């Protein structure tokens, strides 16, 4: 019995030790001060698979913003560290295990001051609670899932509270949430004369949530929603699912990596007249390229919404910062038509650096940074336009860009003023 008692005691200690690891591995728990005069900004994005092109564009934008301030904010030197949240076996998306590992790495690093990512909302679901518990400020360049910040339509039960174990908001994003993208897609379909729509969603946090938002917005705008079907990523094809579509429009609420090239191909083949719509999740080369993505005949029928606007639109609005960004990007990387996400990468880093700059010697105080970022960002004049970050961490920007596909790349067409968007 004594041996058993000892064994139980050891077991209890081990369990207790394992339990304490849930805090994220220690580090700057509770949002203390980052140590030293070098502050580290981590970036965590999928660097493999279908989202590789978008992630590289984000990184280019982030590096450009950092380079422009000479890699220093006041007395602090800024170190940039890029992490991959995807794996060879799970590319194109944030891998849960790898994402958690990235977040823990940032938590364990006492010099961490910002964490920029994830690219996928499903990834942020994993990293946000870990970073929040440690008080590390986080900005995503691309997350649109509603439930990360609010409990509005499209959120799952328990969202967003479950992502904030510290009970304070530490997360912000520079793209409008999916209630707005959903409304933008519905507005576009309405303008195109859609009477009914059939939705496929990829069952991810992003795809399922956006699907619900498009469904709600479509109904509000008088478009009949004939179905919202979840799709299995591992299905060989979606032919039989596609043949049941009777609507005159189709919306694929998913990301390329969830087999959405196949989904669009099968829907287009099942109904040669159906109009096709996709969200920002497919606004990437792996989808738009006619060599590896959808065929040219399908691309010609597809419209995509992305939160970013084209250079022409920024010029028309007289946004000098955006014009300068495009010029600097071209001179640095030799690309005059960057991926739509490059400007978001730039703005993510610029927002982080400006927040640090505004705090002067307190730039190493995570709590002060969080306070300044979430709810404290007001009337920010940026490459994206002027916006606030509200108390939930959402941007007040609402404009969406409508893109078609030309020569295998997304081509900006116009701004969508989403009807009924909140």
């Amino acid at each position, binding site marked *: 019995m004594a041996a058993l008692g000892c064994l139980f005691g050891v077991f209890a200690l081990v369990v207790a030790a394992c339990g304490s690891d849930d805090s994220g591995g220690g580090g700057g728990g509770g949002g203390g001060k980052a140590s030293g005069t070098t502050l580290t900004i981590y970036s965590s994005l999928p660097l493999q698979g279908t989202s590789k092109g978008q992630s590289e564009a984000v990184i280019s934008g982030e590096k450009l913003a950092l380079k422009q301030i000479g890699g220093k904010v006041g007395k602090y030197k800024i170190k940039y560290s890029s992490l991959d949240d995807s794996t*060879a076996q799970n590319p194109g998306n944030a891998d849960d295990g790898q994402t958690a590992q990235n977040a823990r790495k940032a938590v364990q690093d006492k010099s961490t001051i910002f964490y920029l990512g994830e690219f996928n909302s499903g990834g942020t679901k994993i990293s946000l609670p870990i970073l929040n518990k440690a008080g590390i400020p986080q900005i995503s360049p691309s997350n649109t899932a509603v439930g990360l910040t609010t409990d509005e339509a499209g959120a799952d039960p328990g969202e967003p509270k479950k992502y904030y174990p510290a009970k304070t908001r530490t997360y912000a994003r520079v793209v409008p949430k999916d209630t707005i993208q959903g409304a933008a897609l519905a507005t576009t379909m309405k303008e195109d004369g859609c009477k009914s729509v059939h939705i496929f969603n990829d069952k991810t946090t992003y795809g399922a949530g956006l699907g619900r938002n498009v469904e709600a917005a479509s109904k509000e705008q008088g478009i009949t929603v004939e179905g919202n079907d979840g799709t299995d990523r591992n299905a060989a094809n979606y032919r039989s699912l596609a043949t049941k579509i009777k609507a005159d429009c189709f919306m694929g609420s998913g990301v390329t990596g969830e087999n959405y090239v196949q989904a669009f*191909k099968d829907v287009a083949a099942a109904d040669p007249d159906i109009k096709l719509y996709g969200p920002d999740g497919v606004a990437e080369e792996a989808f738009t390229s006619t060599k590896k993505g959808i065929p040219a005949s399908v691309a010609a029928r597809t419209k995509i919404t992305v939160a970013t606007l084209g250079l022409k639109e920024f010029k028309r609005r007289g946004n000098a910062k955006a014009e300068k960004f495009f010029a600097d990007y071209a001179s640095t990387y030799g690309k005059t038509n960057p991926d739509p996400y490059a400007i978001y990468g730039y703005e993510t880093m610029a927002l982080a650096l400006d927040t640090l700059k505004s705090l002067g010697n307190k730039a190493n105080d995570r709590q002060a940074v969080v306070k300044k970022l979430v709810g404290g960002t007001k009337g920010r004049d940026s490459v994206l336009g002027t916006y606030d970050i509200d108390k939930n961490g959402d941007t007040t920007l609402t404009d969406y860009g409508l893109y078609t596909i030309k020569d295998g790349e997304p081509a900006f067409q116009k701004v969508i003023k989403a009807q009924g968007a909140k």
Partner: protein
Amino acid sequence: MESASVPSERVRPTGGAQAWELISKYGLIALLIAFPAYYAITDVAAGDGLSRIGENLVAGISNGAIWALVALGYTLVYGIIELINFAHGDNFMIGSFVAFGLYGVFGLGLGTGALGLAVGLFACLLISMVVSGALNVMIERVAYRPLRNAPKLAPLITAVGVSFILQNVGVLWLGASQVGIPDLIDAQRQVVEIAGVPISRSDLLAVAVTVPLVALLTAFVNRTRLGKAMRATAQDPEAARLMGINVDTTISLTFLLGGLLAGAGGLIYALYQTSVWYFQGFTAGLIAFTAAVMGGIGNLRGAVIGGLIIGCIQQISDNRIGNEWTPAVVFGYLVLIMVFRPQGLIGEETREAG
């Protein structure tokens, strides 16, 4: 594998057991038929006719034909050495990748003429079959043969290891995402409509390649000396060896045949889906193995019937219930069949089964 009749001293089943046997066999067949029948009746009742269920079944048969080709590889190998060759699905993936690679070698593209396409694709078919066949033989020689007398778990876990190795070869080859490939045959173009049911080029292709291959395989196993050697080895390798059969060569031949079919399936899959990816083998392998078990492992007819049944269940479920529920429906059926008829619909043909 379908073996010649084996004299055995089986206990004669009682009347009750015979009745249960009949009920479990035909009851399950009735249950399988009930699935499309229910939707056919609801369609007719709604005044929609039978064309929708017809479309589901046509898509099911063409998809199932591909699963059947892969399932045959599982059943051949299990029949002869009672090993679940987990790497077989990945060999099928390699077949697809080889075929896609050959598009470039032979200059096959959307602009290629009909004759060039026919010749080029036939060459692709032969080469991908040979590559997958040779790969399967090599895997058997390197990874399984040294473990012939080892405990059963050893080759099983080795097969899992080989599967992972092939998957990683796929990742290194074409990356880890789905890759869209040229739709050389305009796969979904309708060729003919029968009773309101459209038949596409890809439907015809899948059946046109699968049926002769299955017929050839069946004839080979049943009518040739080598086939007889395979059946003898499947029944009793020691007795076969005593009768002068080279058991190792026979087993290699079995792996070769399975690999050839996987290569053919790989090309059809590439033409049918117009996309390939490294994980397709895992998914196809799971489905095909399920098909082989459902039909009766070791039984060639069972593998084909199992493949076709799963293809049809998948397509009906996709169309009527929802794509996200399809794996649950397919495996639900498998569980049901295993519970009431563990030997599969047609019956096992293995040493264990007798």
